[in-house]
């Protein structure tokens, strides 16, 4: 999993080199601006902007497609319902079901926004290592408890995941087949075991932490240095966001 996430995070494109804090703020503001769009005429704009940014990011298309595969299933569910349920103007009939115009437009709106926002999110977190993203958030003011919890949870996530796989393999080797509901209590014990092990490990980890000074006033050197170009890019994105929102307000 980790490999997947940080796989293209070490490339050398301008988006990769963009100061993480500026990137975080700029992209999130743009994402929210896109989420505000309702007018149909702006839909192709946001789609094109997201697509262009993705190309500029140097991330491969295969990466985007693999990340969009599962969420697209959700969209399918919506696609099946909205055109038939929403609106009055009937476009055409499929048997007893009437495909309505408003429903189709709603679907279009949701689909475009969904894909644009997800693409921007993938750019944001795909062009820097996850660890850097969390540190950038800390640099932007995330409370130390949340930052610490995120970092430690991230550190042990994969290990605990591996433990789970090992336990599942061990169960399978002893004949457990996860096919019927009768295995329910075994799964509950599995979950319980994961919790207990993590709990016990956290005790030892805590001891290791205090031995190396956790709880002392710690110094954090300024981890990020924003260059002028980073701030310029941030302002660019903020302006773009403002333009989108204003246009939306004027059109609608």
């Amino acid at each position, binding site marked *: 999993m980790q490999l997947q996430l940080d796989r293209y995070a070490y490339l050398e494109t301008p988006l990769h080199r963009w100061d993480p804090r500026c990137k975080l703020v700029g992209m999130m503001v743009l*994402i929210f601006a896109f*989420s505000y769009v309702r007018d149909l005429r702006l839909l192709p704009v946001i789609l094109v902007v997201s697509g262009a940014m993705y190309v500029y990011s140097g991330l491969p298309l295969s990466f985007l497609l693999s990340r969009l595969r599962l969420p697209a299933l959700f969209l399918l569910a919506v696609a099946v319902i909205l055109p038939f349920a929403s609106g009055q103007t009937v476009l055409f009939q499929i048997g007893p079901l009437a495909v309505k115009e408003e429903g189709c437009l709603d679907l279009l709106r949701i689909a475009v926004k969904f894909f644009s926002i997800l693409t921007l999110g993938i750019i944001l977190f795909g062009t820097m290592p996850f660890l850097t993203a969390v540190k950038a958030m800390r640099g932007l003011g995330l409370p130390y408890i949340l930052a610490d919890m995120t970092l430690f949870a991230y550190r*042990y996530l994969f290990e605990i995941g591996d433990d789970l796989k090992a336990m599942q393999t061990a169960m399978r080797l002893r004949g457990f087949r996860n096919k*019927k*509901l009768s295995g329910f209590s075994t799964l509950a014990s599995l*979950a*319980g075991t994961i919790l207990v092990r993590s709990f016990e490990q956290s005790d030892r*980890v805590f001891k290791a932490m205090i031995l190396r000074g956790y709880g002392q006033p710690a110094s954090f050197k300024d981890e990020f240095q924003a260059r002028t170009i980073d701030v310029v890019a941030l302002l660019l994105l903020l302006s773009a966001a403002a333009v989108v929102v204003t246009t939306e307000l004027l059109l609608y």
Partner: protein
Amino acid sequence: MHIPDGILPTAVCLGGYATAGAATWYSLRKINQSENPREGIPRASLLTAAFLVASWVHIPVPPASVHLLLNGLLGAVLGFYAFPAILIGLFFQAVMFQHGGLTTLGINATIIGVSAILAHLVFQIRKLFGPDNRTATGIFGFLAGASGIALAAVAVFALLVTTIPANIDVEAERTAIGILTIAHIPLMLLEGVFTALVVLFLIRVKPELLEGK
């Protein structure tokens, strides 16, 4: 239960961040007031990771399988750390798996997190029957698990109904709600029983886990 990007109005998303921020602020305050705030951090961090991993377990419900939300169980075990844990868990899911959303992180955290805290309170009722009462633990474990998902589901439906395109005709809406509600009843039972079983396992193997902070 995770609302994706693109369907909710921006105002609601921003409002969700505000409520999540408030709930986080309150939780952090409670944590800082406890005896040893730093001690709880490694514990909560590892349990956050553990819960995320536990939610990956497939529960076979023929013909398919489901993943449980486990917010009720999380609330029962983590107490005040439940909200930050859920916020972080949802963040991981949104960034790593595109499950949930970035604009909807706040609202998802609020819905699932607040339900978890309420489930925690429900679970605490078991103490009225004696701290080591296994039957009480089992029953309130079930109630915590079921209510965790029930509250979240109700909140999500209410939100979607009030914010989704107003073009949907009332009849269709009513039927949809009806169907979704009925579909969630077996899920509630599933989460309730699972939570009860895990909680009974914990009280036998590691009762300190259920002390609740």
